[in-house]
C-alpha cells in the first residue's frame, strides 16, 4: 500500500482541486447533474478505507459502463485504487482503466508503475493480468514500456504469461505499427515455444502482425502439426487456417495429375466407398510416399509434411466446436487429394443439427463445395431436405444445395421435394423454389419439359408472387427452345391481363416481342392493350413495351405502325429520361428517314438477333477462390485483412526448410537435408508424438525430436547457470570427443546468436528461460502420460502387430520412456560448453575415464502417473540428483513417478535407479527417491509400511524422514532385492496423515550391475553360455544409431552394463551380473553393412536374457 499512499500524496492536491472542475464541466453540466450527485457518493465510497465500500462502488461503476453510460469523470477517483489489495476491486479497476484510459491518457499514466510492479510479481496470474491491462491501455506514450514488458513476458517461465504476451503483440501492433520488426522477433521466439497453451495465441499474433512472413513457420511447421490436437479449440481454428495457407505455398497440388476435364460427377464415384476403403487408400498413398521418391518424380508423391498435416487434422473433424470442424473441412477441401476430401462431408452434415447461425454458415460453404465436388454430398442428399420450421434463410440455402446436387439420377426425388415446397406458406421460399426448378431444368435436359410444365401449371396459382416468379423463370427456359413452346407463350400473353408484378409483366412482354413470329396474331393485340395502359406501367414494363413495339414494327409494320408511333409519342413525354432516351433512339433507328437510312437497314438485325439463352447459374459459382469458411467467402467480397489463398506452386519449394536444425552435434542427430535421409529416419520414434494421437513412426516424428533437441540445445548453454554441483562433477566425466563437438556447436551457436538477441542479454533472463524450459518439459510429460492411454494404442498400432492387451501397453510405455530419455541426451553437450572454461581442469582430470561421451539427462520431474497405468510405473526415466561418477557413466538415468502430486495431495515422489551399489546389502538394487512437498502444509514422518512382496524379495527401507517442509525436496535411498525378477514391489508410503499405495517395478536392465571383463574373459565366459543360454536376434539399426558411440550409449541406457574392450570395431560388447544371483550377463552387438546388426545376449537366466534382448532391441531400433 505504500505505493498507493505515495500516489495519494502526490496526487492529493490536484485531485481535490480537480474534482470540482469535472463537476463544472460545461459539456456535461445541467442535464446530468443528478448523475453527478450520485457520482459524488461513488467518489466518497472509493476514497473510503473499506474494501467492501470500494467494491460496491466499483460494481456500480462497472454496471454503468456495461450499460453504456459515461463514467469517465470518475477516472481520478478510480485510478487511485489501482493498487488496491482486494483482488476483485483491482480487477474492476482494471476493467475501468482499459475502458477509459484512452480518453484520459495523462491520468492513466499514473497507474503504469503499478503494472510494472505487477509484472515482477511471483504470482503468474498477477503477472499476466498486469501485462494484459498494460497492453490494453491504448496510450501511445507507453509503447516502449509495453515493448519491454512483452519481450520480458515472452521469456517468462509461466506459459500462461507467455500466452498473455502473445496476446499483447497485436495490441501493441495496432497501437504503433512501427514496432513491427521488433514484434516479429518476439513472435519468432514465441513460435518456437513448445507448449500448447501458447501455440494458438502466437499464431493469432502472427496472423495479425505479419501473415506474409510465411518463412517463420518453416521451422515450426511440424511442431504445430503435432501439437495441434492438444491446442485449445480457438487456437486450433487459427492454426489450421494459417497452415492451409502455408501448405498452399509449400506443397504441390495433389490433384495435379488428374485431368481437369474429369471434374464432372462420373469420376467422383469411387470416393464414396466405406471408410475402410479410404483408409486403405491412405495407407497405399503413404506407402507410395515412402517408397523412395528418388526414382522419378513423375507420379505425384505427396510431401510427407503435407500428409502429416492432413493426418493430424483429421481427428479434429470430431470436435464439438463447429468452427474447428469447418476449419478442418476447408483445409481438406483446399489441400487434400480429391479422393480424400469425402471425409469432411459427414462432419459438415452433422453441423446442420447445430444452431441456425451455424447452419447458415455451413450451408453457404457446402453450397460452394457442391459446385466443385458434387459427388461428395450426394449420399447426404436427404439431410438437406427442408422442414417447414426452418428459418427462410436456411431454407433458401438448403434449396441451393439441393439444386447443386441435382443430377439425372436423383432429379425425380428432388423435384418431388420441390413440389411440396411450392405449397409452402413462406412465399419467399416458394419464389426461391421456382427459381431452383428453373435451374434444374436448364442443367438437366431430361427434365426440362416436366419442369416447364410444372411451372406453367403454377401460372394459374392464386398467389401473384408465385405466378410472377414462374413467369420470369419460364421466360428463361423458353429462350432455349422457343419454337416448341409457342402455346405456352400464347398462354402467357393472356396473363398480362392479370399479373401486376412488374418484373413478370416485363418478362412476358419481352417474350412476346422476342418470339412475335410464333404468335403473330396475339402480339399486336397485346401491344394494343399495353399502349392503353402505358402511362400507368412501371418503368421496366414501359421499356419492354417500347421494345415490343419496335420489334413488332419491324416484323409486322402493317398492323402495328400506328400503335408504335403512339407508344413512342407517349414515351417521348415520360418522366423518366431513360424511357425518353430509349424512345428517341428507337424512333431514329426503326422509322426510316432520309438521314438515318444507314442504320435502319440493320434495325431488324439489331433487334431480332438470336440471343443466347441465359445460363442459370448458382450464386455460389466461383466463390471458392475465397478460402472457405472465411468471412470473405460468406460475403463474397474481400474483407479487410483477408489473406488470399495462394495458388499451388509449379514446383515444390525446398522441403528441407522445415527440417529443424540440430544444434547439438552428437553424431546421430546430425542434420539431414536430403529427402531420402529424412525418409529413412522415419523409423525413428517420435519424441512428441507421445502426446500426439496421429503421428506414428513417420517423418513427422523424427522432425519433432529434431526440433525438440534443436531448440533445447539452442539455448542449452544458458542452463549451466543453475545446474547443481553434483551435475557438474558428473559433467567431468565427459569425453574429449565431446569437446570437438562443442567446437562445432559453438560455431552454430554464434550464428544463432547473431540472428537472435544480443549476447549480453542478462544472465538472470537466461536462467529464467531455463526454468521455463524445465517447466515446459514438465507439462509436456504430464500430458504425455495422462494421455498415455490413447497414445499407447496409437503406438502399438503403429508398431504393427502388438495387440491391444495390457502387455503391449506396458511395452509401449517402456518404449516411450526410453524414447524420452533417448531424445534428451543431445541437450547435454551444449550445456557444458559455457561452463567449460571455468571447469576445464576438472574435465581434464576425469575425461580419460571412459571414451564414450556421457550425455546426461536433465532432471525430469513430475511424471504424472495416469491412474490406468500405475502398475506400469517404474520403468525408466531420468534422475533428479545425479550421482557422481558411477561405474557406467554413459547411462542416462530415468525418473519414474511413484506418487503424483495430485494423488499425493501435494506430495510428489519420484524415483530412479541410481545404479550405485547399495551398501547395506549388495544383493539389493538401489532406488533413489525424491520427495517433493508441493502442498502448503508440512509433511511429517515419511516412511514405508506394509510391504507386499513376491516370495524371496526383500526391501531395505529408507530411514524415516521426519519433516518435509512445504515446498521442500528431500531424497532418500532404499534398497530392493528383486530376486532378479521384474515383479513389482508394492508398499505403502505413509505420511503423518495419509497412506498411499505405491509400487516400484524395475526394468530388467536395472537388475544388473556392471562388471569388468577383459576380451579374453568375455570370450571364455561366452563360450560357456551357449545353447539355451544364448539368444540371438537380427536387427536393423536406426539411422542415427550406426556408430559405435551411439550403440554403446543406447545399450548402457537400457541396461546397467559396462563396456568390454574389443579389438574389432564391428563389435560392441558389454558385461554385467545380475544383482541378486550374480549371474553373468553378456551382450554383444555386431554391426554389419548398412545398419544390419546382430544382437547376442548370453545369460544363464533365460528369462532375464529374453527380456533384456527385447529392451536392447528396442533401444537400438527406435
Amino acid at each position, binding site marked *: 500500500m505504500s505505493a498507493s499512499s505515495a500516489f495519494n500524496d502526490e496526487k492529493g492536491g490536484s485531485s481535490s482541486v480537480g474534482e470540482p472542475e469535472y463537476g463544472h464541466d460545461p459539456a456535461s453540466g445541467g442535464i446530468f447533474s443528478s448523475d453527478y450527485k450520485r457520482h459524488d457518493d461513488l467518489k466518497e465510497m472509493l476514497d473510503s478505507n473499506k474494501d467492501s465500500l470500494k467494491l460496491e462502488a466499483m460494481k456500480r461503476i462497472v454496471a454503468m459502463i456495461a450499460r453504456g453510460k459515461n463514467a469517465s469523470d470518475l477516472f481520478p477517483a478510480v485510478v487511485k485504487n489501482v493498487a488496491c489489495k482486494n483482488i476483485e476491486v483491482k480487477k474492476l479497476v482494471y476493467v475501468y482503466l482499459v475502458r477509459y484510459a484512452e480518453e484520459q491518457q495523462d491520468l492513466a499514466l499514473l497507474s503504469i508503475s503499478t503494472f510494472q510492479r505487477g509484472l515482477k510479481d511471483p504470482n*503468474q496470474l498477477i503477472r499476466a493480468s498486469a501485462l494484459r491491462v498494460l497492453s490494453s491501455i491504448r496510450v501511445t506514450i507507453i509503447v516502449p514500456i509495453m515493448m519491454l514488458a512483452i519481450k520480458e513476458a515472452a521469456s517468462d517461465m509461466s506459459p500462461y504469461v507467455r500466452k498473455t504476451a502473445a496476446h499483447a503483440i497485436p495490441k501493441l501492433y495496432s497501437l504503433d505499427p512501427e514496432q513491427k520488426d521488433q514484434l516479429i522477433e518476439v513472435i519468432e521466439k514465441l513460435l518456437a515455444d513448445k507448449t500448447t497453451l501458447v501455440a494458438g495465441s502466437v499464431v493469432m499474433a502472427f496472423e495479425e502482425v505479419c501473415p506474409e512472413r510465411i518463412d517463420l513457420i518453416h521451422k515450426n511447421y511440424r511442431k504445430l502439426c503435432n501439437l495441434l490436437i492438444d491446442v485449445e479449440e480457438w487456437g486450433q481454428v487459427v492454426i489450421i487456417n494459417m497452415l492451409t495457407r502455408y501448405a498452399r505455398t509449400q506443397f504441390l497440388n495433389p490433384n495435379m495429375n488428374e485431368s481437369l476435364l474429369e471434374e464432372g460427377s462420373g469420376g467422383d464415384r469411387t470416393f464414396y466407398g466405406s471408410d475402410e476403403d479410404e483408409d486403405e487408400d491412405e495407407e497405399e498413398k503413404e506407402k507410395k510416399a515412402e517408397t523412395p521418391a528418388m526414382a522419378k518424380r513423375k507420379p505425384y508423391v505427396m510431401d510427407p509434411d503435407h500428409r502429416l498435416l492432413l493426418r493430424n487434422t483429421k*481427428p479434429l473433424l470430431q*470436435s464439438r466446436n463447429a468452427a474447428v470442424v469447418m476449419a478442418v473441412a476447408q483445409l481438406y477441401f483446399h489441400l487434400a487429394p480429391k479422393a480424400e476430401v469425402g471425409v469432411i462431408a459427414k*462432419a459438415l452434415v452433422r453441423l446442420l443439427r447445430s444452431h441456425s447461425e451455424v447452419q447458415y*454458415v455451413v450451408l453457404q460453404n457446402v453450397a460452394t463445395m457442391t459446385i466443385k465436388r458434387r459427388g461428395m454430398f450426394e449420399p447426404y442428399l436427404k439431410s438437406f431436405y427442408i422442414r417447414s420450421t426452418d428459418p427462410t434463410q436456411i431454407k433458401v440455402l438448403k434449396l441451393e444445395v439441393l439444386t447443386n446436387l441435382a443430377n439425372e439420377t436423383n432429379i425425380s426425388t428432388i423435384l418431388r421435394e420441390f413440389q411440396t415446397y411450392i405449397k409452402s406458406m413462406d412465399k419467399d421460399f416458394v419464389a426461391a423454389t421456382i427459381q431452383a426448378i428453373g435451374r434444374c431444368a436448364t442443367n438437366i435436359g431430361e427434365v426440362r419439359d416436366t419442369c416447364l*410444365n410444372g411451372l406453367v401449371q403454377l401460372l394459374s396459382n*392464386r398467389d401473384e408472387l408465385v405466378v410472377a416468379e414462374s413467369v420470369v423463370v419460364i421466360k428463361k427456359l423458353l429462350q432455349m427452345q422457343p419454337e416448341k413452346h409457342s402455346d405456352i407463350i400464347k398462354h402467357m400473353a393472356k396473363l398480362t391481363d392479370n399479373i401486376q408484378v412488374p418484373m413478370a409483366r416485363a418478362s412476358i412482354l419481352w417474350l412476346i416481342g422476342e418470339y412475335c413470329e410464333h404468335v403473330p396474331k396475339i402480339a399486336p393485340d397485346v401491344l394494343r392493350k399495353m399502349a392503353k395502359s402505358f402511362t400507368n406501367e412501371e418503368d421496366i414494363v414501359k421499356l419492354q413495351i417500347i421494345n415490343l413495339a419496335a420489334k413488332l414494327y419491324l416484323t409486322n409494320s402493317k398492323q402495328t405502325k400506328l400503335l408504335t408511333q403512339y407508344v413512342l409519342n407517349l414515351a417521348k413525354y415520360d418522366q423518366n429520361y431513360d424511357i425518353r432516351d430509349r424512345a428517341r433512339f428507337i424512333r431514329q433507328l426503326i422509322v426510316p428517314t432520309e438521314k438515318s437510312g444507314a442504320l435502319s437497314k440493320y434495325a431488324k438485325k439489331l433487334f431480332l438477333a438470336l440471343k443466347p439463352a441465359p445460363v442459370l447459374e448458382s450464386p455460389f459459382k466461383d466463390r471458392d477462390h475465397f478460402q472457405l469458411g472465411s468471412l470473405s467467402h460468406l460475403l463474397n467480397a474481400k474483407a479487410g485483412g483477408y489473406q488470399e489463398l495462394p495458388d499451388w506452386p509449379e514446383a515444390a519449394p525446398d522441403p528441407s526448410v522445415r527440417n529443424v536444425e540440430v544444434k547439438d552435434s552428437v553424431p546421430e542427430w546430425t542434420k539431414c537435408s536430403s529427402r531420402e535421409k529424412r525418409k529413412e529416419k522415419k523409423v525413428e520414434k517420435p519424441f512428441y508424438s507421445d502426446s500426439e494421437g496421429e503421428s506414428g513412426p513417420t517423418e513427422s516424428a523424427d522432425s519433432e525430436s529434431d526440433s525438440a533437441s534443436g531448440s533445447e540445445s539452442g539455448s542449452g548453454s544458458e542452463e549451466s547457470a543453475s545446474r547443481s554441483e553434483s551435475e557438474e562433477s558428473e559433467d567431468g566425466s565427459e569425453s574429449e570427443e565431446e569437446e570437438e563437438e562443442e567446437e562445432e556447436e559453438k560455431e552454430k551457436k554464434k550464428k544463432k546468436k547473431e540472428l537472435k538477441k544480443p549476447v549480453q542479454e542478462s544472465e538472470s533472463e537466461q536462467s529464467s528461460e531455463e526454468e521455463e524450459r524445465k517447466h515446459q518439459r514438465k507439462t509436456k510429460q504430464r500430458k504425455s502420460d*495422462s494421455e498415455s*492411454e490413447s497414445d499407447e494404442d496409437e503406438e502399438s498400432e503403429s508398431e504393427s502387430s502388438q495387440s491391444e492387451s495390457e502387455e503391449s501397453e506396458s511395452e509401449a510405455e517402456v518404449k516411450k520412456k526410453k524414447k524420452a530419455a533417448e531424445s534428451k541426451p543431445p541437450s547435454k553437450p551444449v550445456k557444458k560448453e559455457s561452463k567449460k572454461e571455468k571447469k576445464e581442469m576438472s574435465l581434464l582430470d576425469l575425461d580419460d575415464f571412459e571414451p564414450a561421451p556421457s550425455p546426461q539427462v536433465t532432471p525430469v520431474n513430475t511424471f504424472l502417473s495416469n491412474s490406468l497405468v500405475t502398475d506400469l510405473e517404474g520403468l525408466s526415466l531420468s534422475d533428479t540428483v545425479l550421482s557422481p561418477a558411477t561405474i557406467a557413466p554413459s547411462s542416462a538415468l530415468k525418473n519414474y513417478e511413484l506418487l503424483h502430486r495430485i494423488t499425493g495431495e501435494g506430495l510428489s515422489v519420484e524415483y530412479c535407479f541410481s545404479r550405485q551399489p547399495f551398501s547395506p546389502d549388495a544383493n539389493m538394487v538401489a532406488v533413489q527417491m525424491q520427495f517433493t512437498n508441493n502442498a502448503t502444509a508440512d509433511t511429517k514422518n515419511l516412511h514405508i509400511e506394509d510391504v507386499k512382496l513376491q516370495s524371496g524379495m526383500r526391501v531395505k527401507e529408507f530411514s524415516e524422514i521426519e519433516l518435509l517442509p512445504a515446498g521442500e525436496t528431500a531424497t532418500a535411498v532404499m534398497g530392493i532385492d528383486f530376486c532378479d525378477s521384474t515383479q513389482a514391489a508394492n508398499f505403502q508410503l505413509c505420511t503423518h496423515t495419509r497412506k498411499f499405495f505405491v509400487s516400484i517395478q524395475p526394468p530388467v536392465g536395472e537388475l544388473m550391475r556392471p562388471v569388468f571383463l577383459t576380451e579374453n574373459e568375455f570370450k571364455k565366459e561366452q563360450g560357456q553360455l551357449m545353447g539355451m543360454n544364448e539368444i540371438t536376434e537380427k536387427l536393423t539399426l536406426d539411422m542415427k544409431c550406426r556408430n559405435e558411440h551411439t550403440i554403446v550409449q543406447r545399450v548402457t541406457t537400457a541396461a546397467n552394463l559396462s563396456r568390454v574392450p574389443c579389438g574389432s570395431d564391428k563389435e560392441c560388447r558389454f558385461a554385467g551380473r545380475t544383482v541378486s544371483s550374480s549371474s553373468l550377463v553378456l551382450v554383444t552387438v555386431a554391426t554389419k553393412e548398412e545398419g544390419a546388426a546382430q544382437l547376442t545376449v548370453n545369460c544363464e537366466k533365460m528369462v532375464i536374457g529374453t527380456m533384456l534382448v527385447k529392451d536392447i532391441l528396442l533401444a537400438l531400433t527406435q
Partner: protein
Amino acid sequence: MIHSLFLINHTGDIFLEKHWKSVIGRSVCDYFFEAREKAVEPENVPPVLQTPHHYLISIYRGKLFFLSVIQTEVPPLFVIEFLHRVADTIQDYFGECSEGVIKDNVVTVYELLEEMLDNGFPLATESNVLKEMIRPPTILRSVVNTLTGASNVGDTLPTGQLSNVPWRRVGVKYTNNEAYFDVIEEIDAILDKSGTTVFAEIQGVIEACVRLTGMPDLTLSFMNPRLLDDVSFHPCVRFKRWESERVLSFIPPDGNFTLMNYHVSSQNLVAIPVYVKQSISFFETGPCGRLDITIGPKQTMGKTVEGLMVTIHMPKAVLSANLTATQGTYTYDLATKVLVWDIGKLNPQKLPNLKGSLTTQAGTPKPEDNPSLNIDLKIQQLAISGLKVSRLDMYGEKYKPFKGVKYLTKAGKFQIYIYMFIFLENLMSYLLFEWLQCVLKHSI
C-alpha cells in the same frame, strides 16, 4: 478479432455493451436494427451483416441477440461458436440466459466477458476454469460476501489453465460419488401423406452428470457401438481409443456436460413410433373446412408413448377451429394460426382423435398452402436406435461410484406433409384445358 459485443433484447434495447479494443459507438447497431426490421422473424436476421466499416455477426438465443462487431477477416463460425459459448456460460452460471438474469448479474457477466476474451481472442472458455476465477453466485456466498467483503474472484491461476485436462479442476470432493448418463435420441423424420418415410434419421446425445472425487478415469462401452455412424466428442474423450476400440475413455469434467453427440447411420431403418391418419380439406364453396386426425402407435418396442403433442400450422385464411378431441386438449392461436393438440399419453386401446370444422375467411378462395403437421413425443427407457451402454469402468480412484444410465427417445424435427402435389409427366393436354378454363373465366 471480436471488437465489441452488444446484447440486445427483443424490443431492440441495447442493455449491455463490452468493448475489447477501442470503443465503437452504439450507432453501429442501427444497421442491425434495419436488417432486423426487414427480416420480420428474429430467426431470419442474417447472422452476418456488412456495414461500411464493420461486420456484424449475431446470434439469437433466448429472445436475445448477441451482436458482435468485427473489423477484419475472421472465420464467421469462430465468432458464432464463441457467442454461443458466452450464452452457454451465462446459462451455466445463472441457470438461464435471459435479459433479467443478465441485468441482475451485470457485473459478474462483465467480469466473465473480460476473462473470456483478451483483445478479441478467446482466452478462457472452459467453464471450470472460469468458475475458479469468478465463482458463480450462490445465495449463501453473496450473503457472506456482503458481510465480510470477501470477493468472488479467485487470485491464483486456475489449475485447469495450465493442465492438459483444462476441463477438470483438481481437488474435487464428494461424499456421494455418482455418475449418471442420459442417452437421449431424437428422431428426425419427414413422412408423406400416406405415411411413407421420406427421410428419417436418429440423432443422439449422451448427457452426463458426473460427481466423482479426485481424478477418475472413466471408460464407457457400448453393446453395439457399430450403430454410431458419426460422432463428435467433448474434448475430454480420447479419440484414438474410440477409433481403435470403440469405447469412450475420458477423464470427465466435474458436473453436467455433453459427452458426445452421435448420428445413427441412415442405412439402418429408423423405427417410426407413431402413425397419423389425417385429412384436412376445405370446401370449394363456403367458408369452412374439415379436419380429422387420428394417431396410433406404430413401432414403440413395447413402451408407452408420452408427451404426445401435435402442432399444425394452418393456412392464413383459417379463422377459427371448432373441434372435439377424444383425448387431451387443443388450442388454436388466431394470431399465429397454429393449432396445438396436447394429447399426453398414447393409449393403444383407444386411439386419440381430433375432429371438427374449420372456418375460413369468407370470400377468400380455398387456401392453397400446405399445412404442415409436426409431432412431439417422448418414450422413456428406450433408445430407439437400439443403442445400449454395456458398462462403465472407473480407474484411478479407489471408491465405488454409483452409476446410472437413462434412455429417452424424443421426436426431433418430426414432420408430416399433409398434401402431395403431383407433377404429371406430360401435362400438356391437361394444361391446355386449364388455360382454356382460365381464359374463359377471366374473359367473362
